[in-house]
């Protein structure tokens, strides 16, 4: 009887341990899905060339900086790039196989020194918000609306601009590794997977290199990670992609245009809440209200007129 009890207790403890391991794994995902499209984690393999991938751009930039590559800077992993990688690997006592995996990425970043940041002192009490400026390539932590500390970042390339809008942090990840560096934080951008994360390509900080995410030095993202909670507001301002103002705007429409529409509503006094790029209930109500004030009808034609009133056409 006593033996059976012991066995049952051991089984229960075992189950508890397994559950807790699974839970801890869920809390700190090692391979976040949200950035797979933007930051591929699989190695670059020469047998599959030519291959087009976002990280090839970073690779070519760095190889060119180090003097191993002199071809066009693009996202195509071709023969010239493979040869440059092999030459680099040889000079760093790595196996010259042209496979770009974590060791090679780490070696490429060797010698990059994070510039010293101004010591802003202890964080004052107050509401923390983040403001990202993709023109100055900076991320500023605001406390009660006042700037506390500013960090350098890398923004999205011209073909994949970082989404402008008012987002919030919806998830956080710890010790992610690879292209995401040591930490990542997901944003609630509705039309893609974007976030703020560290990097294994520190040379790219201060340039337009990512596929839309905000990249930071690992030391910086680690500091930021400890400061902010899930739900923290992140306002991104800066360059805008080409916009399509003739697209339909109905309930549920998502996109960069909707963010600007929401900003326009606010500018004219019809605040629809955060400019989060989703034409939801509140945005729809505010569009109706503003259309009614100007004496317009409802629906698509009214939104078209409001776009003109807000001065958005041509942006």
């Amino acid at each position, binding site marked *: 009887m006593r033996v059976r009890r012991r066995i049952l207790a051991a089984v229960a403890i075992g189950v508890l341990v397994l559950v807790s391991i699974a839970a801890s794994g869920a809390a700190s995902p090692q391979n976040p899905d949200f950035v797979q499209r933007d930051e591929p984690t699989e190695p670059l393999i020469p047998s599959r060339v030519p291959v087009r991938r976002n990280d090839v751009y970073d690779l070519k930039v760095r190889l060119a900086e180090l003097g191993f590559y002199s071809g066009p800077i693009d996202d195509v992993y071709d023969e010239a790039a493979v040869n440059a990688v092999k030459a680099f690997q040889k000079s760093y006592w790595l196996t010259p196989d042209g496979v770009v995996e974590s060791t090679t990425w780490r070696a490429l970043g060797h010698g990059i020194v994070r510039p010293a940041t101004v010591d802003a002192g202890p964080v004052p009490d107050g509401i923390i918000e983040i403001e990202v400026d993709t023109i100055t390539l900076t991320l500023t932590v605001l406390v009660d609306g006042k700037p506390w500390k500013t960090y350098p970042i890398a923004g999205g390339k011209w073909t994949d601009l970082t989404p402008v809008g008012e987002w919030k942090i919806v998830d956080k990840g710890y010790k992610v590794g690879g292209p995401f560096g040591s930490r990542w934080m997901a944003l609630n951008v509705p039309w893609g997977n974007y976030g703020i994360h560290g990097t294994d390509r520190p040379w790219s900080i201060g340039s337009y290199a990512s596929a839309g995410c905000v990249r930071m030095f690992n030391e910086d993202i680690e500091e930021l990670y400890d400061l902010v909670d899930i739900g923290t507001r992140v306002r991104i301002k800066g360059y805008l992609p080409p916009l399509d103002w003739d697209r339909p705007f109905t309930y549920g429409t998502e996109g960069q245009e909707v963010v600007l529409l929401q900003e326009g509503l606010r*500018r*004219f*006094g*019809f605040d629809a809440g955060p400019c989060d790029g989703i034409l939801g209930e509140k945005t729809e*109500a*505010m569009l*109706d*209200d*503003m259309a*009614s*004030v*100007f*004496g*317009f*009808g*409802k*629906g698509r*034609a*009214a939104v*078209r*007129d409001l776009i*003109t*009133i807000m001065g958005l056409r041509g942006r």
Partner: protein
Amino acid sequence: MAGRLHGKGGSRWAYPLPRRTKGSTRRFTCSLMVLTIAALLASCLGRPEVPDTYDLRNVRLVVWDALQVKFPDSADYSEEVSRVIQEFCRETGATVDLRYAERREILDLLTGTYPKDTTEVPHLVFSGEYPVLSDRLEDVSHAVDPDIFLDAAANYWTRDGKLLGIPAFIHWTGTAVKYQAGGEHAPENGEGEGRDLEEGEAQVPRPSRTAYWTDSPLFLRCALDVSGMEWGAETVLQYAEWVRENYGSFHDDPLSAWEHGLADALYPVNPYLYKWLEAREEEGSGITIVPPGTHFDDDRFYYTVPAYLVLCEGGAEKAAAVELGRRLAKSLGRWAARTLACVPALVDDMSIFNLESGFDYAERKRIWDSVVTGEAKAPEAAEYLQVVSLAGALEAPLREFLSGRISRQDLEGLIHEALSRNTRP
């Protein structure tokens, strides 16, 4: 006969007192009772339903206001609302829960389609620019003298001698016309401000190319309601033909046609749109506002009178709602006169319209003439809903006809069909 003397050592005052007999005491008691009953009846039936003063310290008011447009060079109205409410609370000790409701919600509340059980009905609500009467509205004439308002403003909200809203301003709708300096439609140059216009001097300039919105809720109302015309098949048809002949074919995007010089007039234009259009005009050119003008031979502006409406019955709450409504209406009227070039409802504030609206004398006179002769009244909720429904049903056929895609005969058939589907229940 001298009365008794009061006080020590003789009196300073001596006055006659009637001698009380048994009969006189009875008569006195009876008359006292009659007087008391009369006073009680008067208090119930007469106008002074709410005493002049109430202790408002424990009153909590729920107020629904509406958001107003922020124009870059003008005061933010919501700041003015906050200031008025803070002052009211400080002076009376009352508390106010302010909510900016959407115009759709306000309309639903007034037309009775608002889900009553899901929210707190406000004590005071802004009517919106296209107001309607409602069973919920309280008479405020006991506390607000209708004579302080322009007749057109007070009449808009008066039914059976009851003032059912506290008017804020007169919201006109017309046609915006572009002009070049010294051009055909150029307005008066400002000389002779304050003088009477000569016969024919304030003639309405007529544009040659007008872009218009058939889907605007004002497209039919401006034409039919201002002249008191029936929403019948014949009048709608006549109006459609008049528009095609005088305004030209339908532009898919009227605002773009205006912006790109394809149209030199826009219809219907209300004060908000006019303000926006005016701000974009280059120096040396400008716009003026003229009445829609229809084949019904009525050159008057269509107007409504936005107001603050009291929805709570008697007592301290009503007294507080009326007082706050009076203050908010005055404040909004002044803002609208300055920012939107609207006529304020208060007679005393007319100088703001004259001096700060930006309109010249001829423009002011055109609007003023409509206000003086206008007989507009807030529609009943059922009537309003029917008009909205009918206008919605007629929009597509009118657009098709004005675009030249269907014939007059087809339009007539579609109008009859729409009318038959939208008759009053």
